[in-house]
């Protein structure tokens, strides 16, 4: 049970696929113009990731090492095709706005990376949990970006009524995607630096506190 929790935290925060590992950036930026699109993309990618993780973990002992990548790609492509046709049949509006990005789930680096790094080495249950938690990490960040961009760019949330007038239209256009993602990544890095700095500080002698050179000499001069 402890391991399950560990994997979950790992996918959601510690190794968040988008904000920490910097993979899967294309759908992250392209499908976040509205929160609804982001929601759909997050669910679709999580579904493909979890299903392909389970199947890859099931066949991991049969597949010969040399041809594992083509096998993984075919499995992922099969689930992508299923998702593509489900969305086309039941959510035609979503299919219209996500467009080419649904078939492109197949080359989403997150899925192949998890297949290679986790599912091909672990049992079915753990791979299932890993797929769900990595998917959740992607889902949370893409929906967050989608909500920020939709709120600032068209003053709505999940297609609601207009909340204020004169929104910043630039936020739903391509430059706004880069800008919002850059700001989110900067904030995450700031928090990360704050958390890790405490550990470095504790290694320094006490008299270094407030010294301008402490980051350079790391307490060397006081010895």
């Amino acid at each position, binding site marked *: 049970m402890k391991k399950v929790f560990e994997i979950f935290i790992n996918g959601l925060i510690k190794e968040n696929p988008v904000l920490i590992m*910097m993979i899967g950036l294309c759908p992250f930026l*392209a499908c976040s113009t509205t929160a609804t699109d982001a929601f759909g993309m997050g669910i679709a990618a999580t579904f493909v990731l979890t299903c392909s993780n389970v199947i890859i973990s099931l066949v991991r002992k049969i597949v010969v090492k040399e041809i594992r990548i083509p096998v993984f790609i075919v499995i992922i492509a099969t689930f992508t095709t299923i998702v593509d046709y489900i969305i086309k049949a039941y959510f035609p509006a979503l299919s219209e706005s996500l467009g080419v990005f649904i078939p492109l789930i197949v080359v989403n680096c997150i899925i192949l990376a998890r297949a290679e790094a986790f599912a091909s080495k672990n049992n079915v249950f753990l791979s299932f949990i890993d797929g769900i938690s990595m998917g959740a990490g992607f889902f949370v960040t893409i929906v967050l970006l989608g909500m920020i961009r939709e709120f600032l760019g068209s003053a709505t949330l999940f297609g609601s009524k207009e909340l204020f007038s004169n929104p910043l239209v630039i936020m739903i256009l391509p430059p706004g995607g880069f800008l919002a993602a*850059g700001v989110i990544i900067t904030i995450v890095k700031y928090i990360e630096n704050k958390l890790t700095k405490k550990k470095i500080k504790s290694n320094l002698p006490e008299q270094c506190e407030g010294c301008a050179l402490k980051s350079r000499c790391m307490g060397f001069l006081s010895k």
Partner: protein
Amino acid sequence: MKNSTLVAIFISSIFVNNIILMRFLGLCSFFGVSNKLSSALGMSAAVFFVMNLAAIVSWVLYNFVLVPLNLVFLRIIVFILVIASLVQLVELFMKKNIPSLFKALGIYLPLITTNCAILAVAFLIVDYKFNFLQAIVFSSGTAIGYTIAIILFSSIRERLELAPLPNAVKGYGIVFITAALMSLSFMGLIGLFGF
């Protein structure tokens, strides 16, 4: 889009619908290899080469195999497998026959299989129902657009390395904000050919 002239398709795929800055495709390689100008040049040459080949092969396969046999639903699997094996084939051919080119592009070729820009061009050609000539013009224009964006971006990034920045913005933060400014300037070209 189907009836537009070749010149319009060419210009629009380079600037107005720039694959990186306006369509958000191929971002992994865009951020990954743009830290040095030389690697950006190598990557864009490899992309130009493979993108055109993949567009031709997937157009032929789609129109002469998948559509007549009523197998359009297999297109995702077929395209990704064709591109992956094409890259392998090109790599083997280059290694044996053009070793000097292989030395320059070799390390970028395996990365291209998961470059979504290549696969996206194959899908977009099918979606827009282009004829063969339009497909070639579209894929080469897109590849030139990729080259322009990544070369400009890597030149900016080489200077950014030396800029005094706060710790939190260093690395990917400033890279994304720079990309936002570049994308803003490319947006000024919207409406050039009615796209």
